[in-house]
């Protein structure tokens, strides 16, 4: 089964700093997602991305967040000015295509904002 690789595995950043989280795409997977999990809570949807466009975003995904996948390379999540409450595990997920294909999750990036 293909795996989703995320980098870094752990990042500590100062409040107000920008961070970029990366996800390596699986070959022929077309749909990309970012999810967030605050410690001890459920996994929350942030954004879905298809054909170089955002398909849907949640209320959490405000103007401080952005995603891109330049030239078919890594799928990235950028947080422009981090806040303490952004501390969480961030998971990238990918899905092959339409229909009932499973979502494959990465092992996550633990973001700690201090």
């Amino acid at each position: 089964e293909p795996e989703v690789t995320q980098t870094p595995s752990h990042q500590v950043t100062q409040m107000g700093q920008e961070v970029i989280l990366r996800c390596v795409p699986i070959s022929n997977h077309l749909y990309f997602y970012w999810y967030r999990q605050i410690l001890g809570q459920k996994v929350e949807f942030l954004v879905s991305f298809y054909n170089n466009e955002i398909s849907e975003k949640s209320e959490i995904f405000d103007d401080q967040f952005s995603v891109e996948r330049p030239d078919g390379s890594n799928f990235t999540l950028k947080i422009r000015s981090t806040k303490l409450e952004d501390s969480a595990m961030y998971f990238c997920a990918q899905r092959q295509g339409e229909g009932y294909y499973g979502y494959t999750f990465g092992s996550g990036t633990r973001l700690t904002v201090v």
Partner: protein
Amino acid sequence: GESVGLHLPTLSVQEGDNSIINCAYSNSASDYFIWYKQESGKGPQFIIDIRSNMDKRQGQRVTVLLNKTVKHLSLQIAATQPGDSAVYFCAENPIIQGAQKLVFGQGTRLTINP
């Protein structure tokens, strides 16, 4: 609104016994459901899925039951092993205008006692 919840936050069973984890969902537009296992520090790991045109699906030691009448989903794990100790999430996939995303429940922590 969308919500997926679990009846019990924790469940302890003896090794070798069967376990049942329950989940209630509220979005009648969901037609695809997945159970994930999450071990500490790792991303959600796919266990089993089921489409809404089915009421039961079996895998290796796991069975998922879907009751659309009462919007209830359950995961049965047979002959539990220490490696089954983890947090289990149900997730639903509402199909709305082609957009797809997973909505997760709160999670149940399963502990297997020796």
